[in-house]
């Protein structure tokens, strides 16, 4: 029986397995460095945001180690601020966790968009890379290496047929544009971005937490939390459905203030999102009919 040298190399790197390992390593390293370099502008843009998040956490009365631990465990700025805001309002545990989940549901869309890039990896690596998935590395990976295949586009697998053979290039159309193997190191590129983003984010948070302990309470830095949310929401109000959603959800929270355990927030979110989705659905159907 002939000796097959590659049998013990797991299916995680199907294409590269037939190559010189040194060359593979070189390519992976250069993909990693490319990611690291590409992420520099995004990272510097994050510095003030991280510092404000850290300082606002302390100003809202969060103990420094708890704020730092939360930043490492959750690693998603907006949802951390939402959790802090709710904890100061004495919301019960499940309301805090549900809110964090809802604010972070967008990661599911990112997850769907980047999944084709990681399909050849082992489950353990998939979980590891998942932890690092944030707005920036999702945007950079999918914009730098767009998948021409319609199915694998930004909103993912809606009409894809599954790609059962990992040996087939993720993006067949791109084969002409760049060397086939380069496509196989998206994980290294992604990790390169993350390995700059993650430590810098945690450092700036730590700095913000430290600064927050020095800033007197009269500065009302905890007010930065609602301000950041306003800054995120107003530009997102791009249609009548969005406006109505925001107005109805806000009104609902005010009128459900007396519900126990901050349940009003859950009610408001459900009412708002259902209304928005319904309006959106109706608008799409209308357009479809008129065409």
């Amino acid at each position, binding site marked *: 029986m002939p000796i097959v040298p590659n049998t013990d190399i797991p299916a995680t790197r199907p294409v590269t397995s037939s190559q010189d390992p040194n060359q593979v390593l070189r390519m992976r390293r250069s993909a990693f460095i490319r990611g690291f370099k590409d992420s520099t502008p995004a990272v510097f843009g994050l510095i003030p945001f991280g510092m404000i998040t850290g300082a606002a956490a302390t100003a809202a009365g969060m103990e420094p180690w708890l704020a730092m631990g939360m930043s490492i465990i959750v690693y998603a700025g907006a949802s951390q601020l939402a959790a802090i805001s709710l*904890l100061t309002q004495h919301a019960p545990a499940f309301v805090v966790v549900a*809110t964090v*989940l809802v604010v972070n549901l967008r990661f599911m869309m990112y*997850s769907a968009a980047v999944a084709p890039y*990681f399909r050849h990896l082992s489950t353990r690596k998939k*979980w590891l890379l998942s932890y690092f998935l944030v707005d920036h590395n999702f945007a950079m990976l999918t914009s730098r290496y767009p998948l021409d295949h319609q199915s694998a586009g930004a909103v993912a697998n809606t009409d894809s047929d599954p790609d059962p053979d990992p040996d087939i290039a993720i993006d067949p159309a791109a084969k002409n544009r760049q060397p086939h193997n380069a496509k196989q190191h998206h994980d290294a590129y992604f990790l390169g971005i993350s390995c700059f983003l993650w430590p810098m984010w945690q450092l700036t948070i730590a700095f913000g937490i430290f600064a927050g302990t020095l800033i007197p309470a009269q500065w009302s830095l905890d007010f930065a939390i609602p301000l950041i949310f306003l800054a995120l929401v107003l530009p997102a109000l791009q249609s009548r459905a969005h406006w109505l959603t925001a107005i109805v959800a806000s009104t609902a929270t005010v009128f459900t203030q007396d519900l126990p355990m901050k349940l009003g927030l859950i009610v408001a*979110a459900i009412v*708002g999102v259902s209304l928005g*989705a319904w309006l959106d*659905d109706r608008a799409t159907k209308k357009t479809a009919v008129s065409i």
Partner: protein
Amino acid sequence: MAINSDFYTWSIVCAAGAVTLLARASFIVLPPETRVPAWLQRSLKFVAVAVLPAIVLPDVLFRDVQLGHSFNSYRVIAALVAMLVAWKTRSIFATLGAGMTALWLMQYFRPF
């Protein structure tokens, strides 16, 4: 007001981290033929604009009422200023700057 680092709060943080990781890993670890449900796609567009104002509003409107003070007009006015700036500039830092400055000015001069 303080959020203590007790076991209860750490548990909340860990649970929040777990659900966040699940959201991130979802389609990466699920079989490739899994599709994004249409209702999810549709709803996600509206999550931020429903949830964030619903968190902000009580925080701004009722924060000091709960602390035993009267209706907190400084924060409400500063939030309105910030909304205007957010709408015009679409910049987080301009919004933060305007809102904080408005609050600080009112806290310093106490016009009413």
